[in-house]
């Protein structure tokens, strides 16, 4: 699945009939080496990949293959040892920590395996958290929060705290939080890992429709082949390299 310069081409994964567009995510020769005591551990080894707008890319592979590391670097919460990541033309590696934080707020929505909602806040307040960093007024924030929660089917659970919601509902709140700033990129790290089959299916359906209907680019890490089936393309990693 790689072209001549080692780049995994999104167009090929999309079936070959899709017109080529500028990739929204452009990864070049990305490497990440961790130091564990006296040993260097290579998590990513010169990975290159392009991801087109509206793709739902699934990263798969065994534990330690580097899929989460790739996701974290693309999402701007980890730094590469070498290589480049561009998202919508912005070289993420060139941003300092403060700019990177702003960039994440505007460009990336996060969905985690364990939901990571703030337990003392209601669903609406959790979803509103990223909007507090914007210049939106209170009424605009409320409107966006409501829209996001209605999109994930939780318009009637706005004032429930996380402990009053099921796992699936909590993950849907997390998706609403990821969407509320209208980011171009949604990253999900094993979003169904803590969910039952029905809830997992609901969550994957929402992520899938985000890519298909809303034009969001979704990158998801998963071990589950059933979950991977919801994606438009799967990238398999092993020992820090994309193998297929």
């Amino acid at each position, binding site marked *: 699945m790689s072209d001549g310069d080692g780049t995994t081409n999104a167009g090929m994964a999309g079936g070959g009939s899709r017109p080529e567009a500028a990739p929204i995510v452009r990864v070049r020769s990305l490497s990440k080496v961790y130091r564990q005591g006296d040993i260097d551990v290579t998590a990513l080894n010169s990975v290159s990949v392009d991801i087109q707008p509206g793709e739902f890319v699934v990263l798969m592979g065994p534990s330690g293959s580097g899929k989460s590391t790739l996701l974290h670097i693309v999402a701007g919460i980890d730094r590469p040892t070498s290589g480049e990541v561009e998202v919508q033309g912005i070289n993420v590696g060139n941003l300092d920590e403060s700019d990177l934080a702003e960039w994440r707020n505007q460009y990336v929505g996060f969905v985690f395996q364990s939901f*990571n909602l703030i337990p003392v*806040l209601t669903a609406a307040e959790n979803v509103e958290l990223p909007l507090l*960093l914007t210049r939106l007024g209170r009424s605009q924030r409320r409107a966006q929060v409501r829209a996001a929660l209605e999109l994930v089917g939780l318009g009637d659970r706005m004032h429930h705290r996380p402990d009053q919601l099921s796992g699936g509902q909590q993950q849907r709140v997390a998706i609403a939080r990821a969407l509320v700033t209208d980011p171009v990129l949604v990253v999900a790290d094993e979003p169904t890992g803590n969910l039952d089959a029905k809830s997992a299916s609901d969550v994957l359906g929402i992520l899938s429709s985000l890519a298909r209907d809303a034009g969001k680019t979704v990158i998801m890490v998963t071990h589950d082949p059933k979950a991977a089936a919801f994606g438009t393309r799967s990238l398999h990693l092993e020992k820090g390299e994309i193998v297929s």
Partner: protein
Amino acid sequence: MTPWTFILKNALRNPRRSLLTVSSVAVSAALLTSMMTLQRELTVPPESEGASLRIIARNKVSLVQPLPARQLPEIERIPGVVAVTPFTYFGGQYNDEEFTSFAQFAVEPRRFRSLLVEGRVSDGDYDAWEKDRTSCMVGRDTMKRYELKVGDRMRFRGTFYPCDLDLKIAAVFEGTVDDRGVFFHHKLLDELTGDLGTVGTWYLRVESAEKVPEVISRIDGQFANTAAEVRAESERAFQMGFVGMLGNVSALIRTVNGVIVFTLALVSASTMSMAVRERFREMAVLKALGYKRRDLLGFILAEGFGLSVLGGALGIGGAWAAWTLLDIQKLTGGIFIVFEVTPRIMASAGLVAAVLGVVSSLAPAISVGRMSVVSGLKTLD
């Protein structure tokens, strides 16, 4: 929701811990306020309006050494002296009390009248006291404390002089900074002791505050190289001489204050560290959502500061209310008179609480600032 709502909800997420933290800070702040008030009470004697015009002249050798009564006319002649009276501490034990918290002084009532600048006493009663050699004038606080009335008798067993006193209350004074004392005729003391020629100290009033240094110098010079050399000093300096004897007590109070502040710091720091440690993962999530180091620092500082200031306000307010509403004289058997929690003391204690709130939040805030999002997300709940 606003950032303040978020901070408030975080501060109250564990109500029991927040309550205990606020209570700990409140108790410490109340204790600190009380100790500072105690230190002030011991080291800063109440200052009256007329104190700046008054001088006490004592024997240069020691306060317990008497002075010859014959010095009186010489002192009176010194320019600037308006009035002078013998002023002798009796040190009696009232009604066989183990500890008598009010002093008794032998004075010359006629001369003493113009020295009692701030005191209010009816002319009729003062005249009655002046006329009756076996009567006394008593402070309002003492009258109240022992439920006495004019005409009652007060008996004192001499512990310093080899005689006892049996005095009829003729007058009551009030309005001075210490309305506890008992004043009686020096002539009575002279008769009872059989010593007509000595006094404890001289108590003077000078016509103006500017004249005080000159009068002090003249008095000291007047009796230099005599058998009874005199050391004159302002009333304030005389009081501070007693305070100087409490030097170690004052140091002890300062040490206790230091311990309180240190304990307060430990309580606050421990609480904030625990509060932040248990939501490290949430902090990482906030970072992922776009919150910057300074935002998280602000959240943590505001929370620590808020809890500390709330506790401080409760403690300081509580101490102020307690020491204002309680009858401190009655409570301490008359040992403390004013025990005033001044605005300065409240501000100092409040500042300590506020600074500690910030300082205790710094370490957890810095560790959150340094934390990477990835490592924070790996933190176990």
